[in-house]
């Protein structure tokens, strides 16, 4: 699989990952690794942030959407 973003720019780069949200193949330069906070509990118990985080690989567009930019 090739990097979709590089392909749009006319470059031919191998993808090293797939965006977990949109499925886009991304190369090392365009892959973004995000750690998503995990919460446990909630009504009728207090919700508490867990020590573990959920690692996610995203394309720049989905990463931007996740952060609300």
């Amino acid at each position, binding site marked *: 699989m090739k990097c979709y973003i590089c392909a749009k720019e006319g470059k031919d780069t191998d993808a090293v990952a797939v965006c977990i949200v949109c499925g886009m193949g991304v190369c090392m330069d365009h892959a973004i690794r995000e750690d998503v906070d995990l919460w446990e509990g909630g*009504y*009728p*118990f*207090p*919700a*508490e942030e867990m020590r573990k985080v959920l690692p996610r690989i995203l394309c720049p567009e989905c990463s931007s959407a996740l952060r609300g930019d």
Partner: protein
Amino acid sequence: MAGFKNLPRRCLAEFIGTFFLVFIGAGAAVITLMIEKGAVHPNSFNMGIGVLGGLGDWLAIGLAFGLAISAVIYALGNISGAHINPAVTLALWAVKKFPGADVIPYIVSQLAGASFASLLFAGVVGMGAVTVGGLGATAPFPGVGYIQAVVAEAVGTFLLMLAIMGVAVDKRATPGFAGLVIGLTVAGIITTLGNITGASINPARTFGPYLGDLILGGSNLWIYFPIYVVGPVAGAVLAAFAYMYMAGD
């Protein structure tokens, strides 16, 4: 069981949540009594609420409670768990879902929030809230005995706790519906139990108006307070154990 963090913040959430429960919910009962003051009571079973609207009066009061509870659950449920009811806190502790060390601080916060709500409501509405509305204090209605009132409160709280266990505590529950379902459950319980015991199903909800009435010179109803402790706590604890048994936990 493992404890939760930030007890002071959680206690503040319980204080605020119970404040709104009493200010909005018990406040609706006060306003209904003030609106219907002077109306001719059709029979001795009617003490004011229901003179003009029948059971619709109790439905309106029930919805005021229920919608306030829904708002509190959605707003504060992730912070403290939004028990806003000592019977719920004790029942969750009884089935080992809530740490024992947090029980007393939670109950103290709930009682304080309810009391502050009653006093502030009197401050906002005026002394009519005390002399006419009794700050929404609960008491058994004519013809309802002490034990009958305890049983009625236990039955109502049993249903409330059963709903909490099924829609919130059980991990199989569909997320997101707890606040709505529990608010509507409380509204339904109040519609039927309202003209029997006042439908407290919550010791804090009765404690606040009782203390407010005592401080501000209203009726002294403390002789009835055990009804609103024994009934709700027994009903909630029984429901929690019954659900755990039925669910196979």
